[in-house]
């Protein structure tokens, strides 16, 4: 069982506002630099290497992530909203699996 990603987006905003978005996702972010204490072998790298945020189908913000990002990656960024709609969030793992989530906002 894994925790769901946590996402903070204001429920409402005025047209033209720049809002703050925060995300937090559960992931060990295994850097590939650590050794297994018992065997002495390096533990293979397994991280989230990509994050993307779209609003109504257009890219708002994204990032390419390296193993130097801490466990349970936290991201805070901004978005300018001019209409009501849906933010979608995608985290991509080294093994190709993705975690997706979305949040709606009403803009007046």
């Amino acid at each position, binding site marked *: 069982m894994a925790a769901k990603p946590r996402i903070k987006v204001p429920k409402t905003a005025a047209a033209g506002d720049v809002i703050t978005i925060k995300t937090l996702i559960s992931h060990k972010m295994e850097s590939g630099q650590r*050794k297994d204490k018992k065997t002495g072998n*390096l533990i293979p790298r397994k991280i989230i290497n990509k994050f993307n945020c779209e609003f109504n189908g257009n890219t*708002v913000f994204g*990032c*390419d992530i390296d193993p130097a*990002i801490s466990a349970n990656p936290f991201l805070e*960024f*901004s978005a300018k909203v001019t209409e009501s709609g849906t933010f979608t969030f995608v985290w991509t793992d080294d093994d190709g699996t993705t975690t997706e989530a979305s949040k709606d906002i009403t803009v007046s």
Partner: protein
Amino acid sequence: MNISRRATIRNSIGLALSGVFAAHVSRVAATADDTAKLIAEFAGDASPAEGKIKLTAPEIAENGNTVPIAVSVESPMTDDDYVESVMVLAEGNPNPEVITFNFTPLSGIARASTRMRLAKTQNVVAVAKMSDGSVFTDTRNVKVTIGGCGG
């Protein structure tokens, strides 16, 4: 517990000292040269200038595994004039790459925060590339301490 006498002495003396110590990493650290190379690739033809970008990081990190950082860049963030991306590098980590934030005019403001790992006391560098190709950079030195308790 099976600890050699010498190790015990060494550790005891080490433990007795209060101050800033480098973390143990399984690979030798990257050098400032590696960082310079990555910046040159990122910047293309432009030469990085100071200003416009601000990197925020603590002077002393309580634990190198979780260090909060933030970047912000002055820009109107219009379709014609915006920040394309900000690359963050750590000179003294096993690999200098940390994260690259990719912005769009829809970002509204070019700012982002995250938490990163630092293997030891070192410089963290942020480099911003604007839509017109110009490049700006900012550097912070972060001291990484090792705890007295099994750190």
